C-alpha cells in the first residue's frame, strides 16, 4: 500500500535556511546541506527546498546551493522558487532536483506547465498553488507570497494544471501559512477530490494532529511542514508514529 508522505520543507533565503533545526552540536543551522543530511538520516520521505525570495527578487535560484543540498539527499528533492522558463527545470534537474516546483510563472502562463511536462515528464513538474479564501467554499490563487491576487479560482487552476501535465500539486493556504493553526482542510479536500494527481497539503501545520487531519480530512497524499520540525517540537519519527496510531499508512522508521 502506498504510504502518506511526510515532507519537511527548507525555506531558504539568500542561501540560508531561515527556519532551521537548532540542534546542539549542529555546526551551522542555517546551512541547507546540514539540514538535508539530518532529514535524510531521520527518514523524511522527501525534502522540499524553497528559495523564498527568488521570485520576489526576480532572480534565479541559487543553483550551487541546490546542488550541494542534493548531494546530501538519498530521498527525492523538490526545488522551487523563481522558476520562470522551461530551461530552468532542466538546470535544476541537472543540479540534482528530482522535482521542480513552478508557481508565479505558470499562473501568468499556464501553457508553461505543458511545455515543461512535455520536455521533462509529468513526474518532475510540481505546480505550487498558493490559495486564499475569498468566500465560503471559494479560494483564489495568489502570487508573490500571498500579496498579489490573480482573480483565478484555486480549484479550477489546479484542475487545469493537472490536465496540462502537472505531476503533483503543492497546495499552500496563505491564510494558514505561518499560523500553526492547522491546514485549511476544506481547501485541501476540495482540490484533492477534484484532481487525479497527488496533492501535498501545506501551510499551517503546528501539531501532529494537524498532519493526521491533512491526510484523513483533507485527503492529501502528503503533508509538508517546516516549523514543527525545524524548531525541534517533533521529530519525523514521532510524526510518523502518531500518524500510524491514527490509522494512516506511513513508512515507519
Amino acid at each position: 500500500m502506498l504510504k502518506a508522505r511526510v515532507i519537511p520543507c527548507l525555506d531558504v533565503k539568500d542561501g540560508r535556511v531561515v527556519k532551521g533545526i537548532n540542534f546542539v552540536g549542529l555546526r551551522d543551522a542555517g546551512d541547507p546541506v546540514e539540514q538535508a543530511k539530518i532529514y535524510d538520516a531521520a527518514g523524511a520521505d522527501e525534502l522540499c527546498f524553497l528559495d523564498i525570495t527568488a521570485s520576489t527578487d526576480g532572480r534565479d535560484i541559487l543553483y550551487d546551493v541546490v546542488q550541494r543540498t542534493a548531494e546530501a539527499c538519498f530521498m527525492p528533492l523538490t526545488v522551487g522558487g523563481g522558476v520562470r522558463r522551461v530551461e530552468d527545470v532542466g538546470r535544476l534537474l541537472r543540479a540534482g532536483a528530482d522535482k521542480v516546483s513552478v508557481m508565479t510563472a505558470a499562473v501568468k502562463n499556464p501553457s508553461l506547465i505543458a511545455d515543461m511536462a512535455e520536455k521533462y515528464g509529468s513526474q518532475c513538474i510540481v505546480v505550487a498553488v498558493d490559495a486564499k479564501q475569498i468566500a465560503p467554499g471559494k479560494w483564489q490563487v495568489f502570487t508573490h507570497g500571498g500579496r498579489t491576487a490573480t482573480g483565478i479560482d484555486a480549484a479550477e487552476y489546479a484542475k487545469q494544471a493537472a490536465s496540462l501535465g502537472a505531476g503533483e500539486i503543492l497546495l499552500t493556504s496563505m491564510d494558514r501559512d505561518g499560523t500553526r493553526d492547522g491546514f485549511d482542510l476544506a481547501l485541501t479536500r476540495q482540490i484533492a477530490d477534484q484532481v487525479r494527481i497527488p496533492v501535498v497539503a501545506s501551510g499551517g501545520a503546528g501539531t501532529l494532529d494537524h498532519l493526521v487531519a491533512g491526510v484523513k480530512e483533507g485527503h492529501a497524499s502528503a503533508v509538508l511542514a517546516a516549523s514543527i520540525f525545524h524548531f525541534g517540537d517533533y521529530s519525523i519519527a514521532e510524526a510518523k508514529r502518531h500518524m500510524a496510531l491514527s490509522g494512516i499508512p506511513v513508512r515507519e522508521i
Partner: protein
Amino acid sequence: MAETIAIIDYGAGNLHSAEKTVVRAAADAGLDHRVIVTSDAKTVRRADRVVLPGVGAFGACRQGLAAIPGMQEALKEAVIENAAPFLGICVGMQLMADRGFEHGDHEGFGWIAGDVTAIKPQAAGLKIPHMGWNEIVLTDNGRRHPALKGLAPGDHAYFVHSYHLVTQNMSQKLAYTEYGHPITAIVGWDNLLGFQFHPEKSQAVGRRLITAFLQWKP
C-alpha cells in the same frame, strides 16, 4: 578484482544521484569499483556491469538511447553476449519489456516478456502517478534471488510512475507492490535485473539493493 560499472547517460535525467548511490554502495561493500557515467558505446561494451537509469517517457528514452551511435548494439553485446550483470531503473527497467504503450507504440529490448501499459487504478481515489513510498513484496523467485537477499519484509522503496510492466512470464517477476492491484516492482532473468522504483532515492533500502547488485555473480 576491481570492476568497471557503466551508468549509461542518454539524456534521460540527472544521473548524479544514481552515480553517488552506486559509489556509496560499492564503498559499503568494500569494493574498489570504478563507476563511470558514460554515453560512450565502447565503454559500455567493455563494462563489467551496466546500469540503465531512465526518467520520462518510454518512447523518449528509447529514442535517446537510439540517438547515440552504437549504444544499443554495445548494450546488447555487453549484457546479452558477454552476460554482464545489468540493472534497469524505472524507465530503464521498462525498456527491458517487449513493448511500451506510453504516447504511442514503441518497441522495447524484448528481454523480459511483457508490455508496459498505463496504470489503471481500480479503486476510487488512487492517484496517478503512483508516487511515493510503497512496500516491496517478493515473489517465490524473488525470495530465492541472490541479488535480493538484502530485502526484508516491510521494506519500502520510492516509486514514481504512471505506466507499469505487465509480465507475461510469472517466473520473471521477482517482486510487486500493491496499488489497487499488484504492480511489478522487480523483474529479473539470468543476468538481468530491473527495479521499477528508484533505489537512488530509497535511502538505506536502496543502497542495500545496489550493494547486493554489485556483489551479485549471476
